[in-house]
């Protein structure tokens, strides 16, 4: 399986950046602490139906897997700008699959390397400040496959962003806009559980809510483990749609591609 080899190579490469990782973890921990402190102060004035412990868990899991959302393949963007991407046409693999495997390895390793030490530290924090195990082990078990489906979803979204870059060549405008949309609608800026209830009914069906919001809600028990199957179906639906959309955009772009020579 050539895609699997690409995946493995990329995993090893991502493991190399340990220095950047420690700085990133400390920075992310600090942001997590600030956010939890803010929500605790807000809850002191007016407690909500969502318990503060769950909000703290939400914040920490979002911070821990931050790298899963915002990691892009800078080499690929450079290739698009410089035109070196035409060499990739010579490879005996599907281009979309090739880059999908690469970005998946990058996001998986990058986030796991950060998430594991961060969550260990967040477990040590007192209850209501840090992360605690869910009341039923089932919640944890249900969250893991959901997180994996979320990863598949975010990689498909990333490839759609790249498809836009192929058209505009300047990654900053469109990429910036799509990433912002993702940060807001996936619950990174404000937990989706604290959005107005009427908004939540719609937002939770969006693809962005499938990345981290759905796994976190399974973990904290806001979605009962019995609902897990429904969540997986929705996630898989978006994975299929987003990959389908991405593949068709990549194919259309490949037809449009003009190699300048030289």
């Amino acid at each position, binding site marked *: 399986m050539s895609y699997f080899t690409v995946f493995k190579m990329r995993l090893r490469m991502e493991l190399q950046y340990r220095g950047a990782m420690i700085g990133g973890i400390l*920075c992310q921990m600090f*942001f997590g*602490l600030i*956010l939890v402190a*803010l929500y605790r*102060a807000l809850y002191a004035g*007016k407690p909500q139906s969502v318990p503060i412990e769950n909000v703290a868990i939400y914040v920490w899991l979002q911070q821990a897997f931050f790298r899963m959302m915002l990691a892009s393949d800078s080499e690929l963007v450079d290739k698009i700008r410089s035109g070196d991407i035409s060499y990739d046409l010579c490879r005996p693999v599907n281009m979309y699959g090739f880059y999908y495997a690469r970005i998946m390895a990058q996001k998986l390793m990058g986030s796991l390397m950060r998430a594991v030490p961060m969550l260990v530290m967040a477990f040590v924090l007192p209850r209501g400040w840090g992360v605690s195990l869910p009341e039923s082990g089932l919640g944890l078990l249900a969250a893991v496959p959901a997180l994996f489906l979320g990863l598949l979803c975010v990689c498909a979204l990333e490839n759609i962003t790249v498809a836009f870059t192929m058209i505009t060549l300047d990654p*900053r405008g469109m990429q910036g*806009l799509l990433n912002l949309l993702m940060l807001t609608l996936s619950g990174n*800026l404000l937990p989706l559980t604290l959005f107005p209830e009427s908004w939540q009914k719609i937002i939770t069906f969006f693809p962005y809510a499938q990345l981290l919001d759905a796994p976190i809600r399974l973990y904290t028990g806001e979605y009962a483990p019995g609902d897990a199957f429904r969540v997986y179906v929705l996630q898989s639906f978006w994975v299929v749609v987003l990959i389908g959309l991405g593949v068709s955009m990549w194919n259309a772009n490949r037809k449009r591609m003009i190699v300048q020579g030289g």
Partner: protein
Amino acid sequence: MNTLRLYFKSIGMLLKSHLQYPSSFIMQTLAQLVMEGSEMMVVILIVDRFERLKGWSGGNLYFFFGVMSVSFYLTELFGRGITGDFPMMVRTGRLDTFLVRPRGVLTQVLCAGTDPRRITCIAVGIVSLIIGSGISGISWSFAKVLVLAESISMSCLLILGLFMIEAIFSIFSVKSVELVNAITYGGRSACQYPIDIYPLPLRALFTVIAPFALTMHVPAAWIMDKPLYGWPAWTAFVTPLSGAVVFVVMSVFFHLAMRHYRSTGS
């Protein structure tokens, strides 16, 4: 004065060069608008759900948010050389060319970068200030306008000073140091809400080491007639000066660090 003229001339030229690619510029400026707009949406949603934060009403929160975004993005607009480009200047050796010219290094670094896209972020901040002032029912007087102007300009100096820490690190390490972001961007995230809601360690950090509380919250709270910790009125005029202190101290360190600067040779 001569230096100031030079600065504005360089910024003007850079601005022109940014406007050479209008569609890309407009797109990115819009992206900035959406970014700061969604930050403000979070505050609105929080106010909608929780109504108040400790002793602060929704209007007060908008006002604090406005002070922070206006100061932070003014700094990024005019101080891009320090807040964004400096590590790159060290890495590529562009800084070397500054050393042979008959002007201060810091001046030239500041002249070398601007980020006009931030203009929409500042606009969002101003809107938030106006809304906040309206809801809080602030009765404006000359002294209050003066304090607000002092607060914003001193906060800009403070933020510039904090970004200089990163610049100083990058003189020694060549790479940009992500960890320093905790105090700059972290400070922005934390201090767009009033300081007294945080536990003591965070409060100490943002009062003593990175005194956002002194340059922003003390004067802003006084303007809204809700003095922070019940401090007397004169503190609103004096404490923002700490921003200038941080800036001066950091420029001294910056010049000391420049003595140890070794070019990457590229």
